[in-house]
């Protein structure tokens, strides 16, 4: 018994092959790759706007208003004679920036609140969930429009309004995931290892619960861009004359019968952006979904 059999066979117990690698190669995921290409291209366009935009997006040229596509103005000009292509390129900067920012704040805030509520439960959890339920009872757009109306139009108001409302979704998602994760034995084991609650939440629960929230964030960016566009369309968005896709649609729609591209092309760009982001979301959900047991 001095050499237990368990140890004798140690050499043979080689680790299982790469079949069960925890993360599949991301580049083998077609929707993630397609999404990254589309969104990457858009971000590149937004960053390079000062370089690649052929004209100043806000400079009016009333003599050359409502030019048809072609010539120097590839996509024509709007009613103030501004180059549509340049406005589209500069608009990418504004819309993508607001979209990402308006997701970042609620993502962080909602995840923290949801994680604490799910982990500790009790009265804090009850209060948070009551608030979440109240927020979910109202339509998103109505709330955003009301808040922006109260705060006044502008980029900061949009951040504030969207953040104030959409954090509840992250709180709810993360809380649900934490409720599942905290019942796992590895969390009990971490506590038995003498680790503090904070350490358990950040290091042991966090990585296991964030994937759903990240996936949701991708579709949330789409939703936020739509909200900005809608606000722009209602005249509550970014103050004119800043180029922004929603206000471009608004401006273009009066000429829909004669100059259809004025409203349609920004619309198409929005669709492509949304598609790219949802592909990323799809790909991430494939990639990040927790490994199930064999």
């Amino acid at each position, binding site marked *: 018994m001095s050499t237990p*059999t*368990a140890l004798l066979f140690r050499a043979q117990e080689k*680790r*299982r092959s790469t079949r069960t690698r925890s993360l599949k190669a991301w580049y083998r995921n077609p929707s993630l790759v397609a999404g990254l290409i589309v969104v990457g291209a858009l971000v590149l366009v937004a960053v390079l706007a000062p370089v690649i935009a052929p004209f100043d997006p806000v400079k009016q040229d009333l003599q050359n208003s409502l030019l048809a596509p072609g010539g120097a103005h590839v996509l024509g000009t709007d009613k103030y004679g501004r180059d549509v292509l340049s406005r589209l390129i500069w608009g990418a900067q504004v819309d993508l920036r607001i979209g990402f920012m308006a997701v970042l704040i609620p993502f962080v805030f909602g995840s923290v609140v949801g994680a604490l509520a799910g982990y500790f439960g009790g009265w804090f959890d009850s209060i948070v969930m009551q608030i979440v339920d109240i927020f979910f009872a109202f339509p998103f757009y109505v709330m955003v429009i009301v808040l922006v109306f109260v705060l006044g139009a502008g980029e900061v108001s949009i951040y504030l309004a969207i953040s104030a409302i959409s954090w509840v979704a992250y709180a709810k998602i993360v809380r649900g995931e934490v409720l599942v994760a905290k019942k796992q*034995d590895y969390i009990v*084991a971490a506590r038995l*290892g003498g680790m503090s609650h904070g350490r358990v939440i950040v290091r042991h629960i966090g*990585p296991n619960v964030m994937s759903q929230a990240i996936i949701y964030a991708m579709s949330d960016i789409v939703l936020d861009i739509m909200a900005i566009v809608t606000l722009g369309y209602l005249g509550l968005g970014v103050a004119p004359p800043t180029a922004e896709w929603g206000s471009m649609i608004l401006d273009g729609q009066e000429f829909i019968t004669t100059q259809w591209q004025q409203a349609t092309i920004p619309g198409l760009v929005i669709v492509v952006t949304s598609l790219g982001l949802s592909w990323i979301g799809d790909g991430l959900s494939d990639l990040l979904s927790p490994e199930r047991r064999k």
Partner: protein
Amino acid sequence: MTTSAVLRVSNISKSYHVPSPILSKLQPGARQRGSLTALDGIDLELRAGEILALVGESGSGKSTLAKILVGSVEASAGKLDYRGRPVPAKRSRDATRRIQMVFQDPYSSLNPRITVGAILGELLRLHKIVPRNQVRAESIRLLNLVGMEEDALDAYPSQFSGGQRQRIAIARAIAVRPDVLIADEPVSALDVSVQATILELFTTLRADLGLSILFVAHNLAVVQHLSQRVAVMYLGRIVEVAETAELFANPRHPYTRALIDSIPRMSESSVNLELVLEGEPPSPYDIPGGCRFHPRCPVAVSACREIDPALTAIAGDHQSACLLANELPPFYSATTS
């Protein structure tokens, strides 16, 4: 008998209050679910350097007791002593360290997002088990101790089989140098051929590290193989405690006898064709009065309906909670061929 106890459990109880659904309150005669009694006055000691098996069927409370011992569940009443000193409800980091646990399900007990090396390293650093520059060497030593190689350090738990995961979980439990290991059915999720290696490992840990181990199990053949003493639980009570050989040769509680006779046998000659026990364990919501085993007991007398027998010593180290403990006929394990 009193000095060598590492852990002593005195009169520990645990009940859960289960609110009855509102609709069933409106319905007259509906079953009232007041409180669930998981543990009802448990007295037990774990002695230094022994493997004590805790056996019982589902609902007997054995897992609840294990959780109370490690402190992840709080007892409703009773007292827990560690080496003669009471363990407070809020344990210090050091008190937590001394009593570690190995879980039943090696898939749920390892964090899928943390490498094996990080799991062990975090504990070693947090408890300052070794100087920081020796953490890796100590991790490797721990892995070797449980029969695994150094290359496991950089792997994620999903890259291992169930048996290997259980080894890693054991390495994690012993990383903080505990005195006591609580193992909650650690082999019941594993294949037969792997079980044997893990059982060997527990034997080695006891011999080489001097660990005292409480081994919760439902498989009596495993228990008989591994442990020095056995405690049998039924519906939140311990009904019999004895040294392993004594318990299986001379069981002094009818429930223990039924359990032994229910074990599926490997030898042709000892296949048991008798139906040993009628019925199933009653619900812990509604524990029978008198002796809680009497509705299923083949030898119950009228007194058993009235008196709730306490666990009492009948000979030396052998305790039983049966009124008829000394009157039971000699036991011959069923061997009808």
